[in-house]
């Protein structure tokens, strides 16, 4: 039992010594909890000490600290009217100084001296940490903004605003995007729009583009179409969807195409027209007209029996218009006519070779081929009969010559072969008799 009591006593002593379970109140003082303690401790602290500190800071131009210490002194000596007076005076000084520096800052800002303006506003804030104007300058007005706020006016359109700020109506997409608008939106007058400010480099590129577009427009009026094409191609390389550049390029190409057509350079005209945006103006018609002109040329050449040239031209037309049936027909007609000419010239083999090159489905080709073949057959028979006549007149050599002509035209002419053989045999016999 004694032992137990000793243990208890030791525990009690230890707990008294260490205060194990004491609350977190580190300072054993709850003066912060209520005014009573505050009042009680007031006598411990002397306002004169803090008043002196306040004056030291005031002399060092640390006015906020001076004010803070004056407030401490006032709290410790609430009945001291002199301290209240000092606080009022100091507040007025702070106001006066901060106003002066604010004005100085604004003056520097008007002169675009940002660095000095900032120092003035910082000084304002040092004197008066709650000065909203100085804070606004430092945190907002002195920092370059990525937006300009623009108030939408009655006669504005998004494109006109884009043109105004970017010198490019195409950049309307930026305004649309950053203002959550639809591309065809017409904001109400008075609506404030955020207009992103593009950097000099971007603006330079846009400005260059704008200058190029102005030049291109001018050159188009001066009918210097090739130059327009060169400039617009440069713009479109960097901005492939630039509508104004596309329009200018199309117009320039269109005019070049017309010029080439007028000069009779129809194929070059066609190539040029084809470089425009599909369906631009009446380019499809103009291309067809140019083709017609080339077809006429080809037909003329055909009439002049310049078959090769005619066919080459027709092939060139097909190169530009694969399905052009007139060109296809022209080529066949050329082959047929060439074949017929050769037939007349009795160049039957050559005629057949030419006809072999033509499209066999074409009627004239087959017709001409049959005509050539019939003519060959007739000619072979004519030579055969002539040979027989010579044979009957005992002109064996002449008869052989005629039959040989027959065989040349018709190598399968058996009678001619047989007769040549007989005639030669007779000639041999006559030679021996003689």
């Amino acid at each position, binding site marked *: *039992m004694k032992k*137990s009591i000793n*243990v*208890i006593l030791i525990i*009690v002593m230890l*707990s*008294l*010594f260490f*205060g*194990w*379970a*004491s*609350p977190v*109140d*580190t*300072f*054993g*003082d709850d*003066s*912060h909890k209520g005014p009573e*303690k*505050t009042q009680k*401790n*007031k006598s*411990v*602290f002397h306002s004169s*000490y803090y008043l002196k500190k306040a004056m030291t800071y005031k002399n*060092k*131009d*640390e006015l*906020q*600290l001076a004010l*803070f210490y004056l*407030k*401490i002194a006032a*709290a410790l000596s609430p009945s001291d009217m002199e301290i209240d007076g000092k606080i009022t005076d100091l507040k007025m000084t702070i106001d006066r100084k901060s106003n002066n520096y604010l004005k100085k800052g604004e003056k520097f800002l008007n002169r675009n001296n940002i660095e000095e303006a900032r120092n003035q506003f*910082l*000084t304002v*804030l*040092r004197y008066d*940490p709650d000065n909203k104007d100085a804070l606004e300058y*430092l*945190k907002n007005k*002195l*920092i370059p903004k*990525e937006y300009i706020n623009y108030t939408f006016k009655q006669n504005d359109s998004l494109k006109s605003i884009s043109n105004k700020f970017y010198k490019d109506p195409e*950049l309307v997409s*930026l305004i649309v*995007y*950053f203002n959550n608008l639809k591309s065809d939106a017409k904001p109400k007058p008075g609506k404030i729009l*955020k207009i992103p*400010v*593009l*950097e000099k480099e*971007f603006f330079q590129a846009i400005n260059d583009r704008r200058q190029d577009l102005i030049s291109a427009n001018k050159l188009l009026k001066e009918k210097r179409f090739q130059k327009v094409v060169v400039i617009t191609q440069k713009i479109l*390389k*960097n*901005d*492939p*969807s630039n509508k104004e550049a596309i329009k200018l390029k199309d117009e320039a190409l269109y005019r070049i195409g017309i010029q080439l057509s007028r000069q009779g350079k129809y194929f070059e005209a066609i190539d040029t027209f084809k470089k425009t945006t599909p369906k631009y103006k009446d380019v499809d018609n103009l291309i067809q007209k140019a083709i017609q002109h080339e077809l006429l040329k080809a037909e003329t050449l055909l009439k002049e029996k310049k078959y090769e040239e005619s066919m080459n031209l027709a092939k060139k037309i097909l190169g530009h218009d694969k399905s052009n049936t007139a060109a296809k027909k022209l080529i066949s007609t050329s082959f047929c006519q060439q074949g017929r000419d050769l037939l007349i010239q009795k160049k039957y083999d050559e005629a057949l070779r030419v006809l072999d090159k033509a499209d066999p489905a074409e009627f004239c080709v087959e017709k001409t081929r049959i005509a050539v073949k019939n003519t060959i057959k007739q000619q072979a028979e004519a030579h055969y009969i002539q040979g027989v006549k010579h044979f009957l007149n005992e002109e064996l050599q002449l008869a052989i010559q005629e039959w040989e002509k027959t065989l040349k035209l018709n190598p399968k002419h058996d009678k001619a072969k047989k007769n040549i053989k007989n005639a030669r045999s007779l000639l041999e016999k006559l030679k021996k008799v003689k």
Partner: protein
Amino acid sequence: MPETASIKKKFIINILPIFFLLLSACAINGSIFRNKHQAFVSDDFVIVKTTAQDTFSSLAAYYLKDPTKGWQIAEFNRMTTLIPGQELIIPLSPFNKAGLKAKGYQTVPILVYHNFSKKKSDKTAVSQNDFEAQMKYLKQNGYHVVSMDQFLNFIDYKVQLPEKSIVITFDDAWRSAFDVALPILIKYGFTATFFIYTDFIGGGKALTWKQIETLSKIGFDIQCQTKTHRNLAVPKKNESLKEYFKSIEMEINYPKKLIKSKLNIDCKYLAYPYGETNNLVIALLKKYGYRAAFTIDRKPNPFFVDQYKIYRSVIYGSYDMDNFKNNLSVFKKTELK
């Protein structure tokens, strides 16, 4: 009877000591061996006559409800150590949010690290020894490594930061930051922000999502550095304005969504790849809800820095201690009177 005696004995041995223990601890309130300090409390300040038991941290814990704000008391009273019996003032709200003085203003340097190596350093890879030495220098010389949120509250003119405040950041998401730098940061109790570009994650030398999740769970800040690390300020060759705009929008939006879905973290800050930006990028950052963005302009930050062009200083592997110290400027001298 013997039973009653046994119960009594048990009561005396077991219950009474506990009773006395509680009684003594609660009633005596620890005051026998502690000096009570005397205090005068107003709405704006507290005047305290310190005791031997007081520290800046304990005073801050008690009066400012935040033991980490001991520096606020020390700095206001322009002291480094407490002497018992000394009178000091505890301002109950920030007294100089911008760190403005007659001879200049406070600046906060932000350091950027990229890659690390266990042994040798090269241009961007800082060696383990160098990083250790740099962190040790910060600790021994009274620098306070503050979080990015604290820094942003400073530039928003909401809070005051310790005079020698600094922010540490890591770019790209190199795995070596986890393997080499992280143990050192933990050793010195420093926080940091990791800016990650999401296409890099999971690559050979990059952090994995698991490691990033670990970093976040142990209190490190994870933020965005785009998707592909493209230069946001410069259109690529033959890239039209529309294509460029679409691309940078994706670079800004995609990683924010991905990090939210993977880690449930809201990206509030973005580090510009190569430190470069322009107005279109900034406009997009604002549209997508970023609070701030970071360049690599080698300057420390005053509170009035442009929030979307915050300066950072890259610490290269080739730096010696003097090069490192040159990036730690916490005060800009200029006449403010």
